[in-house]
């Protein structure tokens, strides 16, 4: 059985993904042992916490939902040759605009309002991202840095908006927004599973057929294959950069608006800090584990969502800090990169 990543068993992306997850479990077991935790009980608490009950499985979908959107967002950008590291900020902007719309339009019929909330969050997330796109297209500004800067600007704008700013609740007591009265319909009783999950899955399936069955999709894939397996520079996409960033950002913005009206408590809060584990950053890991394949991104998002759900149980039962998920996610990410790099080396050797 050849271990080469070009031919043989490891060449198949699903096998690679599974090996990565398994390897990651091994590495993290070692880390847990080194910290005096029992990996067996820890991981079983994790697993049971995630899959143990019907409710928890539904919760996985709820947590995976924003990751699915941001994973698609990041993946789309990567395939067009641009590095959108700003999904976090675009998520913030989307949720801010959605909140404003939710409050301003509170007398509108619910269906209309929901539509407006979703589209406005989507649109402004895209516009926020397009700033970076324009800066790159017209001023040659590296989008990695500009999107990170925009993340922080969005973060502080949000922090202000609900704390003395225009979005704060009318009581002006807590740094949070008004309650939004419209919600996405809950699909199953006694769970938090909401319509947004279906929307995300539909978008993923939609991008899949776009990529597989259309000319645009074919071109994107060709560029994407190159981008993923080789260097970033040398891919000329200047005309399409702004558009690519816009579309990418709109997906991240949509994530923000869906979370606002999909998940209780249906209001916007002041973020404590810019977390490395925010949906915008995890979306990068989600996209890469799935090799930018939209169907794969669904499973990848579910995996990361499952990690989050299980981690809370693991912390409760075993006392292992939930932040272990950060380590797991990081090892997965680094292994993905490692595999991709080795694959590229195999290609060069055989080519």
């Amino acid at each position, binding site marked *: 059985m050849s271990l080469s990543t070009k031919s043989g068993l490891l060449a198949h992306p699903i096998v690679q993904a599974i090996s990565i997850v398994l390897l990651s479990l091994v590495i993290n077991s070692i880390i847990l042992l080194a910290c005096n935790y029992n990996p067996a009980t820890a991981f079983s608490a994790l697993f049971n916490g995630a899959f143990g009950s019907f409710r928890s499985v539904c919760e996985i979908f709820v947590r995976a939902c924003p990751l699915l959107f941001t994973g698609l967002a990041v993946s789309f950008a990567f395939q067009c040759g641009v590095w959108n590291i700003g999904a976090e900020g675009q998520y913030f902007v989307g949720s801010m605009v959605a909140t404003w719309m939710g409050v301003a339009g509170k007398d509108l019929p619910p269906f209309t309002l929901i539509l407006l909330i979703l589209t406005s969050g989507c649109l402004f997330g895209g516009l926020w991202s397009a700033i970076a796109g324009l800066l790159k297209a017209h001023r040659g500004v590296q989008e990695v840095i500009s999107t990170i800067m925009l993340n922080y600007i969005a973060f502080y704008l949000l922090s*202000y908006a609900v704390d003395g700013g225009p979005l704060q609740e009318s009581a002006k007591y807590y740094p949070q927004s008004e309650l939004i009265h419209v919600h996405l319909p809950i699909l199953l009783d006694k769970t938090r599973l909401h319509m947004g999950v279906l929307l995300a899955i539909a978008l993923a399936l939609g991008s899949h057929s776009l990529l597989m069955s259309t000319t645009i999709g074919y071109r994107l894939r060709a560029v994407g294959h190159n981008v993923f397996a080789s260097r970033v520079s040398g891919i000329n996409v200047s005309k399409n950069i702004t558009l690519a960033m816009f579309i990418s950002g709109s997906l991240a913005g949509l994530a923000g608006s869906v979370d606002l009206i999909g998940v209780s408590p249906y209001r916007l809060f002041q973020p404590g*800090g810019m977390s*490395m584990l925010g949906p915008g950053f995890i979306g990068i890991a989600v996209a890469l584990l799935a090799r930018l394949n939209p169907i794969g991104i669904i499973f990848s998002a579910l995996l990361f969502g499952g990690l989050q759900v299980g981690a809370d149980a693991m912390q409760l039962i075993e006392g292992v800090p939930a932040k272990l998920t950060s380590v797991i996610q990081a090892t997965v990410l680094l292994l993905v990169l490692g595999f991709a790099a080795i694959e590229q080396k195999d290609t060069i050797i055989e080519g």
Partner: protein
Amino acid sequence: MFDIISEILAATIRQGTPLLMIALGEIYVERSGVINIGIEGNAITGAFIGWFVSLKLSSWGMLAPVAGLIASASVGMIVAIIFSFFVLRLKTDQVVTGTGINLLAFGLVHLLYTQLVGETGKALKSSIFNTIPVPILAQIPILGQIFFQHNILVYITFLSLPILYIHLFRTRYGLSIQSCGEHPKAADTLGIKVSELQTKCLLFGGAMAGMAGAYLSLAHVPYFNPDMTAGRGFIGLAIVIFGGWHPIKAGGAALVFGFGSALSDRLQARMLGIPHQFLQLLPYVLTLLVLAGLLGRTRAPSALAVPFRRE
């Protein structure tokens, strides 16, 4: 009135120091052609190790924080080695790898901290660097308070600026580093060992980021908090750009960011009618303007973030 101003200006220098430390390291890294956004993770690791070592060695008195500093620099270099393995040896994407390093570092630090201290958040104090007033100069009214009453790390950092400038721009070694970031293939032809120089710059950057973290837990406050870096690594990236990849200009840029922090710390939310968040986001906007060429001229090293392959 003057009291408040000089307090704020002194705080500006103190806030700017860890930012500057990170930026100086990253200037070397980026001048050599690599972009390391994992310095945020690097800094929190350094903050943790520095604090931890100083805590364990508190019987050493004044030497404890020094030991902590050395430990944080060493750990910073280890993190840099991991990063360089991925981006220089395996030639993985530098941005994504940096993100992975951040995730890894934050998770591990949180894990270790919880193990050692317990989730109850019992804050343990380690020994720290004390303020060392410069003799005579510290007595000067106003200016003395602003410039000459800081801890030793502040002095060393700012004094290193001209030294680093000369090293990077006026020595052969420094110019070789720059050539790796501008035209690595040409540098290679001239016999310059590109990967080796890039590794050394990464080690330097890692040590600096680690020490910057240690500054936070050993000089800024005597505690450790898993969120204490607060994005300073990313601010450091902004400072590198805002300062045009130039040590001395980066010093100025670091002070601008430091001023924003110091001012927003001091002012209550609406004292001047300006919410503190606007003060805090201003440096990022300025960085974007600088990048866009609307504010000063700056140009990134041409081969930045492009993996170098010897053909």
